[in-house]
């Protein structure tokens, strides 16, 4: 009986929502999808996997990637413009966002840990920079776009058809005011918090915004993180962090529920300053301030605000970064490792991706970092984990964007330059052989 009531409530909510508020663009299409109506969509773009391109990636990129002993990197999927990822719990499908108009779904069908099918997800939806997918433990997919957040219930089921149920949680034009939309710092990410709410980060569109912008930006937030209920109705939207320049990666520590995020820092101050950041939220409140625009990264004051006194309401609520990363390396996606495949020292550690610099004389980044935590859950040490995508000649073989744990405890790394997903595995016996050849199993 309870199930029937629950189903009726769900359908009523969906139906009510579908007729009440849909934005411009593909509102009609999304309205149909949310009402279980067919749209006439046909199967979207399919990315052929067994190609010469795949062979070239295996031949020209993979052998260059250096990792600690026992780790191995392989090609998981070809996915053009691959950005942030979400992994489903049962089928192991990986949804891959892009900074263009498509979301890919990559699925290993024959259980060899390589994606057999990579195809366009929900092809009738007109996505606008669908950078950030995230997946809940109870089977719901969310996709954060430039200025909308869509909910895809039962995505693992509907994904096999061109039509998928799609319902806006945040309507088109409602994530940030439309007047503030731009092409800069618009790659959103999302995560589901321990409070079962959806957390979305919103970069601010300037290098450093002027003081006139902050009354609005702190309220929305723009240059911050917001949270809201992840089902339609009263969203109870709240600001949980302000003073962030452009965060394109956040995750919750499963051990203590703390929110961590990367932040890309200010340009135009020098080749080696200011540092990038890995932050741990001091608290989740609209007052907690992470330094921007008064700090350009770490403790470095921005040139734009160096003569201005930091307002008391900011200074009193300042939360310093946990880790200062190398300047201009573009720290993006991050995750906490909870698997059993990797050695113990990596369990509970943070993996994060550095996309790589765009304007530094000395190129840097294009690697995966690991940050170990101490017993109090604070960062104790950060070091490179996988590198080699940047050659000595300053050429990018690839540019890591995001890291996510795959169903078997291996690590997926997306790369929007090569347009691929890599899978990093660990084999303890291989590591032992490398350290002590006498341990080779014959």
């Amino acid at each position, binding site marked *: 009986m309870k199930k029937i009531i629950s189903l009726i409530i769900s359908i009523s909510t969906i139906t009510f929502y579908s007729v009440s508020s849909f934005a411009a663009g593909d509102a009609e299409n999304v309205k149909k999808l949310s009402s279980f109506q067919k749209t006439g969509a046909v199967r979207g773009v399919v990315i052929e996997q067994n190609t010469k391109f795949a062979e070239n990636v295996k031949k020209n990129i993979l052998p260059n990637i250096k990792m600690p002993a026992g780790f191995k990197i392989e090609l998981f999927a070809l996915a053009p413009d691959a950005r942030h990822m979400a992994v489903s719990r049962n089928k192991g499908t990986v949804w891959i966002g892009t900074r263009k108009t498509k979301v890919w779904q990559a699925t290993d069908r024959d259980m060899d840990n390589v994606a057999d099918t990579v195809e366009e997800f929900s092809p009738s939806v007109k996505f606008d920079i669908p950078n950030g997918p995230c997946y809940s433990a109870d089977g719901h997919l969310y996709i954060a776009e430039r200025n909308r957040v869509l909910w895809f219930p039962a995505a693992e089921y509907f994904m096999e058809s061109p039509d998928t149920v799609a319902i806006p949680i945040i309507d088109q034009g409602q994530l940030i005011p439309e007047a503030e939309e731009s092409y800069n710092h618009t790659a959103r990410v999302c995560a589901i918090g321990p409070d079962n709410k959806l957390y979305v980060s919103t970069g601010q569109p300037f290098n450093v915004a002027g003081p006139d912008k902050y009354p609005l930006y702190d309220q929305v937030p723009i240059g911050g993180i917001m949270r809201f209920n992840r089902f339609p109705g009263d969203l109870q939207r709240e600001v949980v962090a302000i003073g962030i320049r452009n965060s394109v990666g956040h995750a919750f520590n499963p051990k203590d529920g703390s929110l961590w995020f990367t932040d890309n820092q200010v340009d135009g101050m*020098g080749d080696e300053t200011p540092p990038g950041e890995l932050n741990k939220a001091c608290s989740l409140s609209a007052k907690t301030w992470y330094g921007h625009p008064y700090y350009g990264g770490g403790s470095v004051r921005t*040139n734009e605000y160096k003569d201005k006194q930091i307002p008391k309401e900011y200074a009193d609520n300042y939360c310093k970064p946990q880790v200062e990363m190398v300047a201009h390396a573009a720290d993006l996606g991050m995750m906490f490792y909870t698997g059993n495949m990797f050695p113990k020292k990596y369990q509970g550690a943070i993996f994060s991706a550095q996309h790589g610099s765009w304007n*530094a004389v000395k190129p840097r980044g294009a690697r995966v970092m690991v940050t170990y935590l101490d017993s109090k859950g604070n960062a104790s040490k950060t070091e490179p984990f996988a590198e080699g995508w940047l050659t000595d000649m*300053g050429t990018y073989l690839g540019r890591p964007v995001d890291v996510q744990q795959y169903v078997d405890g291996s690590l997926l790394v997306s790369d929007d330059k090569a347009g691929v997903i890599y899978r990093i595995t660990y084999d303890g016996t291989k590591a032992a052989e490398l350290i002590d050849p006498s341990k080779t199993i014959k």
Partner: protein
Amino acid sequence: MKKIFYFFTVLFLTTLASETILAKESDKICGGGGLAVWTKDGEFKTVREPTCISKSEYEAKLNSKDYLCNYYQEYIWKESEREFGKKQYAYTEENLKKITILKDEGISLCKAGKRKEGEEKFIEAIRIISFTPPAKE
């Protein structure tokens, strides 16, 4: 006996030379201008050699008294004069004029050895750039 001596001398010199070359290669910092592409034959080939400097040259550049004068000047050029950079922002003509004037003043001051004052002019120009919203697509 002499042949053996010559053989080892040549071997020693060759090893020394190659190690010196390798050391110099890894000492390089290569950045802008380089381009590598996939060829039809499936090769990832460098088609344009990048500009490289040595690590010591890079360190010297960072520690030079003129570093910020040069850095800011180049940043202003990239963001407000270079066509690609200029197109990114919703500049007004008035702002572009202000930026140019400040940049020219900065250059003059830096050339006259008044680096701090020159840097301040550049920073003022960069402030205008930073506060200018991105252009609409």
